C-alpha cells in the first residue's frame, strides 16, 4: 500500500526526513545506492517530480551524491553524515521543547522529567 503522509506538510520535506532517518539508523549506509527516482516514486506512491525534488534537496545538502550514468548514492563523507545526525537530534529536541513550553512546563521541570524518565527506563 502507498505511504501515508502528514496532510499539511510538503511531501518532499517528509520524504527528506524519512530518507535522512533511514541513513542515521544505518538502514542506508554511506556509499549505498538509492532507488531510481521512478522506482522510489512508485514505492512511495508519489509524483516523480516530488521525488526528484527530494533527491535534489538532499544533494544540495551534501547528504547524497548524484553520479552521472550511475544513479544517486548516500555520501561517503562521514563528517557530513555526523552533522546530519546532530541536525536531526536538534530538530527533534526543538519540536519537543516547543510543545513542552506551549504546555507551560519550565526548563527545570522538563529536564527533571527527562532525567527521571531515563532512570526509570534503565531500571526496567
Amino acid at each position, binding site marked *: *500500500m*502507498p*505511504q501515508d*503522509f502528514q*496532510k*499539511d*506538510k*510538503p*511531501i*518532499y520535506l517528509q520524504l527528506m526526513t524519512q530518507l535522512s532517518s533511514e541513513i542515521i539508523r544505518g538502514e542506508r549506509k554511506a556509499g549505498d545506492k538509492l532507488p531510481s527516482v*521512478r522506482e522510489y*516514486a*512508485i514505492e*512511495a*506512491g*508519489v*509524483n*516523480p*517530480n*516530488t521525488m526528484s525534488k527530494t533527491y535534489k534537496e538532499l544533494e544540495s545538502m551534501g547528504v547524497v551524491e548524484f553520479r552521472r550514468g550511475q544513479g544517486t548514492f548516500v555520501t561517503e563523507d562521514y563528517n557530513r553524515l555526523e552533522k546530519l545526525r546532530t541536525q536531526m537530534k536538534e530538530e527533534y529536541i526543538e519540536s519537543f521543547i516547543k510543545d513542552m513550553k506551549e504546555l507551560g512546563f519550565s526548563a527545570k521541570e522538563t529536564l527533571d522529567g527527562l532525567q527521571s524518565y531515563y532512570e526509570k527506563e534503565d531500571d526496567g
Partner: protein
Amino acid sequence: MITLDHVTKNYLNTSALNQVNLEFKKGSIVGIVGENGSGKSTTLKLIAGLLRPTKGKVLVDEKKANRLISRKVAYMSELESVYPFFTVGEAINYFESQFEDFNREKAEEVLKFLQLSDDQKVKNLSKGNKGRLKMTITLAREAPYILLDEPFAGLDPMVRNSIVKGLIRFIDLEKQALILTTHEIREIEPVLDEVVAIQNGNIIGREHVESIRDNQKDVVTWMEELYN
C-alpha cells in the same frame, strides 16, 4: 501546451462552462476537482475534441481541438469503452490498429503490471479489471497529453492503488502531461503537481499541491475554503 481561451460551453439551456481560461503544460500532473455537474468532464471532452466550445478557443499545441486532435490526446472516458465480445488481447490489437502512437510493448508491460491476462473476455471482467484494461489502453499510447475522466470512480481501494502506481510507473513526464478529473482527491493527492477547483462552470482556484501543504493546509481544506 493546452490552452482554453475564454471558453464557454452551453448545452441547450444549461451552461456547463463559463468564460474559462486554463493552461496545461507538459511535465506535470494536474487534477481537476469539483462536484458533479461542475464542468470537469466537459473540460476534458473539449480538450479531446469530442465537444466544440460555444464561445472561445481550445488549442492543443496551437492547433484547434477537433476530432483529429486524438492523435495528440489520449482520452479515457468514464464510460465503458471496450467492446465486450473482445478478449483483452483482441482489444489491445484493435486499439493498436487505431492509433499510430500505440506502443505494443508498453501495453503488454502495463497489462503485466496491473496483473491482467490477455485471454480473458472483456464481458467477463470484473469492474476493477475493466478499469485496469481501459487504463492499459490509454497509457500504452505515447500521446503527449493523457486525459483521464474519473479513473477511480466505483473502484475499490486495491484497484485504485494499483492504478495510481501504474500511472506513476508509465507516465513519462519528460514527454507527457496528465490531466485527470476526480472525486477521490485524498488518494490521488500525493501524485498531483497541481489542483484546479471548478464550480458551476467557473474556475475558482488553482494551486500547486506542495504550496498548499507549505501553508499548513491539506487539499481538502483548501477546497472547502474555496467553496465557502
